[in-house]
């Protein structure tokens, strides 16, 4: 054993120390033999030798790292120093150190002489992507709920726990990074006991193997008719839709004719196989297994997430699907230059093929031309989408200030007729109906959970109060950490709440939320004017009580983000025709470098090049140059 331990290099090459994970490495090695054969006979894995599980955790608690180690240990990937976030394939995931898209990997390992098939699904940690988590959970029977021994239970830990709990999965709490300097596994165990009601004996500190704890096996029989859940889908330009499926019964092979329960359409299976994590074609897939299938679907809408697939001759009862992810944040997206419209359109089309949670609507504005109004699950989702557009499709976009979907109950019979209903949803502030035709406005609410050390409680309560939040609950989960629950108007938290919470708590507070319906609110439309000219893209909906302060804040933000120009610029906020706030950006009277001789040119050119690049990212509104980031920065508050 000692020799074995010695041969395993401690994979200490991540941004976080993962010594705890290295420990599992060693222990599991005792049980694992790396006997992955070139051709795998999948029929050898009856349901009782299959474990479908996912890893859920708060951001940064070591999910992707643990996934990397498992992949290495089971021989799915070669063991090298470079394995870092292997399942995070997107550039944005690697740059931000987050998982956006759940990834699946099938692993093989031997335990007490038996070969097991493990299907691991790595999941995102951020609240915006919780729909990915719930999808992944639906394909599993067990979850590893990872908690950092240093940071303890966090808001996403709580959120993810409830997702798994509601899906009635076996939940195995795993305390990670136990050998970090400030690790306090006892405290974390008691937190888990208190918050999740899981006895501390069931917690695993990662220095023991955990797979045999996962006693729950898929309740699926190979003798049943084929029945599979579509839990994710991708689009491949050459092969069409690649659907990720979990088999809840029977088997499927190449050439089978299968039916989508949702659409009733029939397809022929062209290819199928495992994800390890790259696609690994096989002849068949069996009950209990998780894999991919390609069946001539041309549009991702044909592979609806949550749909049930069955054999043409053997219809089955559909599996309970899940609610489609609902867009909660809307923003306009426009090409930098109208000549880039077709390119951006195809980039958005391609990106939404793989992210069906984004809603797309064509839109146009005076200043920005033709574009789209897109709906996202949250602000990070929006940022990630934007970043992927820029990185993967080399598209340069202007994003307008995000807004939440407001509702209005119309009082004008003419308008009710026009819209076909009394209640309308407004995703573009420019289309906000006037009070005179509305009997009531409604705003979306969320139920938020905040976990933080108690030293920050006062500050956090003030912050929440400023955001019109109502406290619902507050408990100590141990002698230092407090869990607070608030009902928030969504628009109050959408842009910068999380950033502020993080910075005011030195990074210790965590936050998560779930939707909590709509509430009546006194809302008004506020216009922003540049040199007297209203800028439709900056129009926002505000609560009447906050109109003055947010108008003032927006003008200040704009003053900071619009560079001084050769003429004076008046920045005003107005409600109707009444100006409620004003800032002035003074004109440059002198702006020229004093000394520019032979030795100064290089530096001057460098500076000018930077300004030219910045200028290319500006939009002309009237005669005012506005940086493209101003459209979104304008809503960030200082508090």
């Amino acid at each position, binding site marked *: 054993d000692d020799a074995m331990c010695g041969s395993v290099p401690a994979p200490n090459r991540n941004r976080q120390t993962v010594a705890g994970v290295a420990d599992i490495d060693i222990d599991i090695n005792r049980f694992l033999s790396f006997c992955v054969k070139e051709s795998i006979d999948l029929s050898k894995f009856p349901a009782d030798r299959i474990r479908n599980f996912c890893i859920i955790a708060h951001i940064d608690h070591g999910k992707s790292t643990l996934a990397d180690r498992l992949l290495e240990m089971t021989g799915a990937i070669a063991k090298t120093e470079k394995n870092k976030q292997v399942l995070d394939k997107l550039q944005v995931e690697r740059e931000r150190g987050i998982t956006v898209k759940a990834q699946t990997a099938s692993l093989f390992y031997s335990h007490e002489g038996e070969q097991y098939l493990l299907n691991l699904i790595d999941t995102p940690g951020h609240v915006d992507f919780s729909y990915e988590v719930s999808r992944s959970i639906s394909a599993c029977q067990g979850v590893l709920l990872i908690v950092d021994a240093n940071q303890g239970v966090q808001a996403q830990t709580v959120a993810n726990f409830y997702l798994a709990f509601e899906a009635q999965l076996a939940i195995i709490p795993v305390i990670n990074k136990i050998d970090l300097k400030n690790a306090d596994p006892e405290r974390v165990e008691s937190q888990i006991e208190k918050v999740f009601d899981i006895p501390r004996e069931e917690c695993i500190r990662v220095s023991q193997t955990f797979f045999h704890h996962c006693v729950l096996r898929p309740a699926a029989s190979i003798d049943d008719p084929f029945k599979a859940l579509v839990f994710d889908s991708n689009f491949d330009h050459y092969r069409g839709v690649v659907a990720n499926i979990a088999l809840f019964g029977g088997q499927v092979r190449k050439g089978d004719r299968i039916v989508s329960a949702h659409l009733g359409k029939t397809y022929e299976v062209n290819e199928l196989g495992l994800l390890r994590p790259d696609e690994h074609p096989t002849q068949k897939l069996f009950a209990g297994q998780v894999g991919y299938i390609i069946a001539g679907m041309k549009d991702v809408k044909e592979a609806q997430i949550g749909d049930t697939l069955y054999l043409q001759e053997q219809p089955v009862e559909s599996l309970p699907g899940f609610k489609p992810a609902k867009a909660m944040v809307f923003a306009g997206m426009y090409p930098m230059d109208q000549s880039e419209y077709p390119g951006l359109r195809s980039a958005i089309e391609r990106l939404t093929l793989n992210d069906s949670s984004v809603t797309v609507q064509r839109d146009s504005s005076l200043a920005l031309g033709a574009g789209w109004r897109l709906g996202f699950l949250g602000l990070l989702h929006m940022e990630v989408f934007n970043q992927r557009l820029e990185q993967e499709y080399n598209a340069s976009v202007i994003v307008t200030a995000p807004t939440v979907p407001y509702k209005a109950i119309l009082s004008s019979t003419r308008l009710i007729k026009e819209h076909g209903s009394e209640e309308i949803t407004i995703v573009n502030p420019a289309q906000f109906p006037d009070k005179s035709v509305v009997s009531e406005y409604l705003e979306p609410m969320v139920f938020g959970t905040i976990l933080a050390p108690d030293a920050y409680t006062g500050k956090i309560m003030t912050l929440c109060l400023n955001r019109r939040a109502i406290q619902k609950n507050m408990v100590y989960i141990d002698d230092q950490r407090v869990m607070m629950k608030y009902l928030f108007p969504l628009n109050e938290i959408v842009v910068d709440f999380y950033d502020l919470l993080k910075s005011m708590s030195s990074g210790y507070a965590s936050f998560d939320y779930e939707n909590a319906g709509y509430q009546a609110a006194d809302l008004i439309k506020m216009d922003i004017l540049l040199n007297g000219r209203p800028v439709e893209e900056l129009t926002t909906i505000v609560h009447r009580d906050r109109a003055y302060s947010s108008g003032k804040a927006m003008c200040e933000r704009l003053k900071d983000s619009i560079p001084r120009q050769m003429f004076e610029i008046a920045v005003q906020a107005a409600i109707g025709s009444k100006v409620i706030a004003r800032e002035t950006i003074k004109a440059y*009277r*002198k*702006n*020229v470098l*004093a*000394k520019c001789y*032979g*030795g100064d040119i290089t530096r001057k050119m460098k500076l000018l090049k930077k300004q030219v690049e910045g200028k290319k990212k500006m939009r002309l509104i009237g005669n005012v140059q506005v940086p493209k980031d101003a459209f979104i920065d304008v809503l960030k508050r200082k508090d």
Partner: protein
Amino acid sequence: MISRTLHALTRALSPGLRRLSHVSSGGPIEDGSDSAHLTGHASLYVHWPYCLRRCSYCNFNKYISRENNDVMMTECLRRETDALLQLSQVSCVTSVFFGGGTPSLAHPLTIAAVLETVAGRVSLSDEAEVTLEVNPTPEGKSRLEEFCVAGVNRFSIGVQSLQDEDLKILGRDHSSHQALQTIEEARRLRPGRVSVDVMFGRPEQSVESWESELSELLKVCDDHVSLYQLTLERGTQLFRRVQGGEASVPAEDVTAEMYQRARTTLHQHGFLQYEVSNFARHNAVSHHNMSYWRGRQYIGVGPGAHGRFVPLGEGGVDREARTQTLEPDVWIREVQQRGHGTRRRIRLGHLELLEEVLVMGMRMTEGINHKHWQMFSPQLGLREVFGTSAEVREFLQSGRLVLDDRGLRCSWDGLAVLDSMLPALLVELERETSRKLQSDEQRERSDPR
């Protein structure tokens, strides 16, 4: 000590000092029409890196010298001058400028030695402008005559201020009285060829005090004035003091007013502004500096010096932006080892060259004339580049920019906000040159001959 150094230096010089005949004010200056001169001619900048002390506002490449290494510096400056002249293959050096640092701390024989080297390799006209930057200290003043003997025919005196209090704040090592004496001596030696540098926007300065200071200066100055707004540079003592609230500089409105009033006052006294910061009477412009703004070649010698020339000597065809090694000791070692201390060479593409021509040219009140632009851009005229842009049209309509039969230039008002217009001009230049390139390629494809 000094005499020994002198002796060694004299021995080091080969055929004796180069003597300059009487120099008439305003040497010959071509208006840039002859493109053959673009690579055949160059000006020469020589950097003397040492200072006696550090000025509180200066972040320039300068060193407080610990020991006298005149002999070594002289030898290295000579070697590098020789090597770079050879590399450039120029036949004529049109002007020489000794800057720093404090080049008036250099020994006159060092200056002479460099000029000798130049004259030994290429044509250096007796009329060619040879400028030396001078710190107006008694030591500086006392050496002016020797510098003249060495070949200097123009002095640029760093007066900065006539207020003793302010000179202290700026960390200068001279008094206003000493400055006046130095100006007088320089004017006696080189009448009509003395420039004074003054600074505005200094801590606690008011528009009124600036105006009275300027009129005082006008009584004593020669035919050339350079006005610089004090810029707070990171890393300087003054920057830290202003950041820390110990000192304050006038607000931007105030400095803008100072600039405009100075321009008006100088104009009233017969000084024509020919560049953002430079004013001359009786056509006493700095030819050396004009050649920077006209996009001419220049060779930079000495630690941290910059150059722009085509290295024809090694078969180069494109102009390069070249920088010499910054740190004097390292530079000395490199020159000793390989003849020059060039640290960085960046080839300038066609567009980059045009960008520099534009940025530098627009600083002159005369701007860029069509003929001059054509020399660098034979394919694409000024009107073609800038005639169609909406933003440029707005500059023209608002009277900040002029585009007419003479060429492209700033108006009086426009010059003060040039840096606000340059990005738009550069965007246009980039767009039009790439458009031109594309259409040329297309034509080539459709007609392969």
